[in-house]
């Protein structure tokens, strides 16, 4: 808990500030991560962001097979936000392990792999294969994916499905010796389990019920929120701008929805919640931390301003100094 354990070798953190975040057996050097799908596999942003200073890097979703993604156009501009329908475009499990993981292993930040699929077995296949690899410190399960067996309704909208999927996946994650990048992110023990983080969809009536289902299934933490369903129609062409019709709304526009859901979810469960959705500056991040999140992720804001994540980290640190808070996890206790 002392300041020195968190400081890393870079000496950026004043003696008394402890920015580390604990998620199960995992320790992140600070609470600021970059959100799945907005930061690729890191290498794309190497010129623009000092990736080693991030708390965590959540990869683009990995599926068993390569996926080309959805038809184009895949993006639309909205008031203070954007829509995407990338559609889990990714090189697939094997290519991920062969081409992306080696570079990710060398990162000093926590590398968390976002896992997706169309069936429960898809998720399991990815998890099983990744369990055999080192250099990964946790899994984020994207349950917003359409469930093929349920007519395409997303896994994440039904508590029963969420609990079952979570349980199956949790059972697949074993205790292991930590090595390389993993060991750097794990300063508590030489052994541990990679935390399974379930990423909640906001397109539900009762986020608390889904959060509890994931907790009951054994999730170590939750991420909250994924994108809202949205549509933009081009009145000149008289077609939806996205080839797929609708897509996922992200960016500052959804921040109030994310903060409300993190507040609700984090007060419904006792596992840690990682907050995201529209965070573009330190004040936004602090709203999430006050609402009950133990860490945050920055997504769309990176497109506007690649420096955003590290500026947010600096802003959180300033806030802690100003408020005399030593441990980042204590920020939520300030909420009145």
């Amino acid at each position, binding site marked *: 808990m002392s300041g020195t354990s968190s400081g890393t070798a870079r000496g950026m953190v004043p003696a008394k500030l402890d920015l580390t975040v604990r998620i199960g057996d995992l320790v992140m050097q600070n609470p600021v991560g970059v959100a799945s*799908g*907005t*930061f*690729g596999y890191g290498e*794309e*942003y190497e*010129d*623009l962001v000092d990736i080693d200073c991030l708390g965590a890097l959540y990869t*683009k979703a990995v599926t068993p097979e390569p996926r*080309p*993604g959805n*038809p*184009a*156009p*895949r*993006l*639309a*501009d*909205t*008031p*203070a*936000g*954007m829509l*995407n329908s*990338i559609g889990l*475009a990714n090189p697939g499990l094997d290519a991920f392990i062969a081409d992306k993981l080696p570079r990710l292993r060398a990162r000093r930040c926590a590398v968390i792999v976002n896992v997706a699929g169309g069936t429960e077995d898809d998720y399991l296949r990815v998890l099983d294969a990744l369990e055999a690899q080192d250099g990964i410190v946790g899994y984020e399960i994207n349950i917003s994916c359409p469930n093929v067996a349920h007519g395409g309704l997303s896994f994440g909208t039904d508590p029963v499905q969420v609990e079952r999927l979570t349980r199956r996946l949790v059972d697949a994650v074993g205790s292991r010796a930590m090595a390389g990048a993993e060991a750097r992110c794990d300063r508590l023990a030489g052994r541990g389990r990679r935390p399974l983080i379930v990423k909640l969809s906001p397109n539900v009536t009762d986020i608390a019920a889904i959060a509890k289902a994931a907790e009951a299934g054994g999730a170590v933490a939750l991420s909250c929120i994924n994108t809202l369903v949205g549509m933009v129609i081009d009145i000149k062409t008289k077609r939806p701008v996205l*080839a797929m019709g609708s897509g996922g709304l992200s*960016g*500052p*526009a959804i921040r109030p929805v994310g903060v409300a859901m993190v507040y609700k979810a984090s007060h419904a469960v006792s596992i840690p919640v990682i907050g995201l959705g529209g965070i*573009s500056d330190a004040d936004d991040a602090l709203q999430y931390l006050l609402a009950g999140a133990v860490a945050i992720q920055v997504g*769309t*804001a*990176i*497109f*506007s*301003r*690649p*420096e955003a994540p590290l500026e947010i980290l600096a802003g959180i640190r300033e806030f802690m100094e100003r408020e005399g808070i030593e441990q980042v996890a204590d920020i939520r206790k300030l909420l009145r």
Partner: protein
Amino acid sequence: MKRFDTTVTSIRPVAEGCFELRFDWPDDAGVPAPGRFFTIKAGGRYDPVLRRPFAFSGYAPPVAGERDGEAAFIFQVRGRGTEFLAALKPGDPLDVLGPLGRGFGKPPRGTRPMLVAGGIGMGPMLYLAAALGADAKAGLCEAPMLVIGVRSAGFIPDVELPAGTVICTDDGSSGFHGTVTEWLAGFDPGLPPVFYACGPAPMMAAVDRLAEVRSAPFEAALEQWMACGVGACAGCAVALKSGRYIKTCVDGPVYDGRLVDWGAAL
């Protein structure tokens, strides 16, 4: 590639609803070659979120002790991002990320570079014409030929056009009465042509057919909505005839036009 805060040096109208904007280009950012692009945060704090991509229309390198490098682009006012840009004045700050993407390749010796520009595709082709014009003077390639297609005379950019530039107008109000491809169909370049083009999808599709008929290479500058601009989000996908997708921002924006599926939702 770099994200930097710079300064507008000049802005002026160059055609109906079009402006040329120039700004300081820092020496350490990289080379803004023809066909490459950059993105601008064009608006307020929260809106719009997505940076707007533009192609370089020109670049003047720094002269030591005299002046900084200066980049230029030509843009058309279309929505709230470009409205914001049109209201800028010299001295105003500009938030730029670049240079990004792949630029145009050099034409092989003994080929005629045919540069085809339509609408807002003007900027990059003007820059390429200038660059290849200089190369030709230095004997590195044949003289390029620039063919510009616009709706009517009012859209012809008020910039210095290379000698021999062909203007085509849809309404016949200036130059050739018809589309660039109609003009091209009737033109004999003397040498085997290499096509370079930037413009609306139907024009690009027509150039593609022409390039096929003439078995000529076709370097196409693509346009697609972008989010990251650096290959991280897969948002800027453009479909190839093979069914595969490329990322416009890193695989392009200049890509082999013969491979692109111009019929898809571009």
